[in-house]
């Protein structure tokens, strides 16, 4: 995806991570990194998937993404337990660059404290935090 974009249906963590919560299933969320994060990182070459059942704590790193010449911690936007990981990234980590909000999703998490979402930013606020 060439152009910067921050969909309105996502919640954003200031460390450039997003969470998508399906209103039909508010106890779970999908996590990924934002357009800004993938752009800063450059061509992603490796995503180290956490094991199923891994505890994710809001504001703390739960895994790493590697580009050719950088490594970045991925921060948990919300707390919970990993219930699914995006296995397709093992073969095509470039999806994180090409489609950060779709095929480039990272993990699905069962939330331990859904109220934490209140502290996340909406798209407008996140965009503002980027100074653009």
């Amino acid at each position, binding site marked *: 995806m060439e152009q910067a974009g921050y969909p309105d249906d996502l919640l954003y963590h200031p460390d450039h991570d997003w969470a998508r919560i399906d209103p039909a299933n508010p106890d779970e969320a999908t996590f990924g990194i934002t357009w800004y994060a993938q752009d800063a990182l450059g061509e992603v070459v490796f995503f180290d998937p956490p094991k199923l059942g891994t505890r994710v704590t809001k504001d703390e790193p739960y895994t790493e993404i*590697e580009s*050719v010449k950088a490594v970045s911690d991925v921060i948990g936007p919300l707390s919970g337990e990993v219930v699914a990981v995006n296995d397709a990234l093992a073969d095509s980590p470039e999806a994180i660059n090409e489609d950060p909000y779709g095929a480039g999703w990272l993990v699905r998490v069962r939330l331990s404290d859904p109220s934490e979402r209140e502290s996340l930013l909406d798209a407008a606020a996140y965009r503002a935090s980027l100074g653009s």
Partner: protein
Amino acid sequence: MCGVSRYTSVTEADRLAMLEQIGVGAIEELFSDIPPGLRLGRPLALGEGRSEQEVYDELRALADRNVSVEDEICFVGAGMYDHYVPALVDAITSRSEFLTPYTPYQPEVSQGTLQAMFEYQTAICELTGLPVSNASVYEGPSAVAAAGWVSRLANGRRRLVVSRGVHPHAREALGTLAHAWGVDVTEAPLRDAVTELPPLDEEVGAVIVAQPNFLGAVEDLEAIAAAAHQVGALCIASCDPLALALLRSPGECGVDIAVGEGQMLGNRLDFGGPSFGFLATTEALIRRVPGRIAGETRDVDGRRGFVLTLQTREQHIRRERATSNICTAQALNALAGVIYLTWLGREGIVELCELMLQRTAYARRRLAALPGVSLLHEQPVVREFAVALDAPVREVIDRCAELGVNPGYPLGRDYPEHCDGLLVAITERRTRSDIDRLADALATAVAAAGARHAVGAG
């Protein structure tokens, strides 16, 4: 004082013009950031520089005070071996294009070094039967320590079990580092010269053995790897890469990390270095591997090319979370290694090792038949074996030296339980007549030293 060194090229006229361009009056001003109290204020006590010819003469005189393997018939191995290095290795590795570049940071102008690394990695994978090799590490014993660190990264366990058959320098180097990691190292004893594993438990991160071991004996790697895996530990084998021409490969045996000294592959003895170490492992551990790795790719025009890859493992990117602090390979020595392996070739390496195997067997029989000499063990060996002498070993060695023979490495310092032991290595450079001369010298020396010993003891 410009112009004192013959390796600088700044003339007096240059200097004046350069200082003027900089805008200072004297070189001294360029060092103005150095507090006056810290200036040395005297010349270093290193004497005057000398002409090339004088330095050559001085180093030549020092070298002449050493007894090299060209000066005597040498049967010492114990980790480094007097193999023949073909002339083409010297010819290729002394080319400026291989000798003088830095690490290949700019792949567009480093394809020679990078492709050679790729070829080296392929050759090491073939020998070890493992799918992943780095572009080399410092040398053998520290490679064992590096493999221990990989196992620590892989499973975080706090104990390593290392066989007493692993090279004593490697065991010591591992111990030096493991202490800093807070990892315990337990020694597995040898029984009849092969490793006897103690009961293992789930605190053990890796079991480390040598193939063949320090006493020359071939280990049952498969059984050791299976025992390690039973408790979820890794199996690390420090291998003689030439012996792997004949032996079941570590990969076939289930070994997780194969490391070893590479000197015997086309590198000279150099009193212990520089040489190279190799490190090969499984796909599962690819992101834990220390050091450089070359990988194949394409350029923008679709041409094949090679780059340093998986660099996020390395210290210049991951810093304190790097898989290792190693940032150098032994590129030139590893190049010699792959040239040597290519020179031997698929059939040649087997023929060479079979020759060593036969001559070693001959030497073993010959020495075992001497009075006062017995085999320290009867396990299968490839090109090194141990005997026990009925006379003080150091004295026997000195007497042999007078006869122009260096009969082997005394085991006493590293293995007090074998203070009568002598480790004898037979490379392809040792002919039957050399071996016969060793037998004669040893017989004479053991008889003389034994007699003196007996008299002294009485």
